[in-house]
């Protein structure tokens, strides 16, 4: 029983990180029609900002703010430099541009910082565990679950109660019509990028809190999972991104915990196999953004 609870918490915390990343991808895809390959690099930027500030002995509240703000600013910059000039060109062009951004940033991290992982000294309490009702759970996992829950609650408020949030949801169906009611593309697109960057920053903090180091390819694995999550959930659907994130995180933990030792190296074969099965049945994902009424 204890194992089940521990693994459930693990699944929620891993799935939650994937969900935050997947929402960022979905939001940018909604408004810019872009699958942002460089999303992982936003995470990595957050990681290096954390490394630098911890190294300088900055107070933790400042570090937390910076790890969210820096990737958000980087995302706005990315949009301005690499995507806005290409607006209106096809998805392939935008995809290639984001690939170039990712490769350039990875190269810069390797050349200017280090190709090797750099350890980050985290507050000691993150390594502790607590017993809740007789079940031992890592503080790390609890922090992750709480942060993810608060972030998702904030996002629900943002998407339901604010005009910008509504614009982003509407844009996933019909961006031209969103402009035709007067929403400024040059406001809502950078805002969507900033949101995706901020979420990547939060994910970066939680990811590093579990691993204790940052390297140039930090974002690669989690963002790959997030891509899969958005595909499973339905590209452009934020609810789908959350569902896909938790599903993919849950499956990963499930196979990790239940596969016999001999099959454990093939864990990802099982998770991705299931993903392919889902996409075979629902090619547009579980919660594909409904197509607009254009009869």
């Amino acid at each position, binding site marked *: 029983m204890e194992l089940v609870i521990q693994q459930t918490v693990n699944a929620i915390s891993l799935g939650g990180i994937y969900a935050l990343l997947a929402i960022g991808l979905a939001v940018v895809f909604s408004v810019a029609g872009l699958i942002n390959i460089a999303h992982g690099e936003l995470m990595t930027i957050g990681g290096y900002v954390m490394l630098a500030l911890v190294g300088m002995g900055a107070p933790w509240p400042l570090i937390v703010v910076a790890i969210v703000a820096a990737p958000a600013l980087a995302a706005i910059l990315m949009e301005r430099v690499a995507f806005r000039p290409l607006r209106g060109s096809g998805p392939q062009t935008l995809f290639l541009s984001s690939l170039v951004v990712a490769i350039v940033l990875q190269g810069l991290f390797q050349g200017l910082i280090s190709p090797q992982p750099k350890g980050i000294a985290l507050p000691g309490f993150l390594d502790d565990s607590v017993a809740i009702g007789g079940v031992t759970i890592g503080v790390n996992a609890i922090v992750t679950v709480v942060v993810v829950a608060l972030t998702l609650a904030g996002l629900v408020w943002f998407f339901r109660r604010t*005009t910008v949030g*509504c*614009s982003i*949801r*509407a844009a*996933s*169906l*019909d961006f*031209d*019509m*969103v*402009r*035709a*009611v*007067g*929403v*400024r*593309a040059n406001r809502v697109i950078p805002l969507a990028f900033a949101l995706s960057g901020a979420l990547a920053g939060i994910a970066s903090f939680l990811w590093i809190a579990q691993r204790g180091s940052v390297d140039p390819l930090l974002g690669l694995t989690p963002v790959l999972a997030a891509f899969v999550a958005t595909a499973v959930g339905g590209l452009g659907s934020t609810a789908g991104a959350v569902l896909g994130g938790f599903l993919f995180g849950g499956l990963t933990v499930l196979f990790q915990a239940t596969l016999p030792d001999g099959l454990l190296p093939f864990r990802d074969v099982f998770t991705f196999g299931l993903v392919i099965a889902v996409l075979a049945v629902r090619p547009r994902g579980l919660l594909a*953004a*409904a197509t*607009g*009424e*254009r*009869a």
Partner: protein
Amino acid sequence: MSAPLLSVHDLSVSYGPVRAVRDLSLEVRRDEIVALLGANGAGKSSTMWAIVGLAPRTGGRVALDGRDLTKTATEDVVRAGVAIVPEGRRVFANLSVRDNLRLGGVARAADDRRGPLGRDEVGDLFPLLAERWDDLAGGLSGGQQQQLAIARALAARPRLVLLDEPSLGLSPRLVGEVFALMAELRRRGITLLVVEQNAQRTLEIADRAYVLQHGRIVLAGAAEEVRASELTEAAFLGGGAAHPTPTL
């Protein structure tokens, strides 16, 4: 006489090699209902979208109340007071009625004294929409979606509404309601440029009309003149086109 509310001069629209609109000029004066008529593919919708800058213009000028909007971004044309009710309604299906109207209100001038379009005011014109305030637009019937698309345009407190095929796909009874609504909007001081297949009924409520054929204006004048003209007949009015079979 003061400048017309909307003036379009020598507008051309091309989709690649296809010229959808050629050297089109038209005017809409304050408090008028102006009809833009023509057969399918005559360039009516392209003209509407080109006015707000969402169709590829290859020439011409657009001005609202004397202010040149030719190079203005779509968002700012709409904010200047031109709201569009597009063909096919294009309501935001994944948002509630309330949130559709919230987005419609984005273009409202900050100093507009009437304030945001509220539920009571919506209920006054569209009682059914007020009842379904928190329901998703995608779940509304076709007629309700058409009402929502119009209400969304009104939420901007526009000076001019471009109505593209508002009766398309509606049952005969709802078609009647849409035409009654247009007359009511004019009474409320809203200027309309209307694209319609249903030419006869449109000409009954319009002040003036333009007839488009192959992207060019072939006839312009007061509604009754246009109705009487053989050119209108030739352009598309003959046969069943004046009484299209409802598809819904």
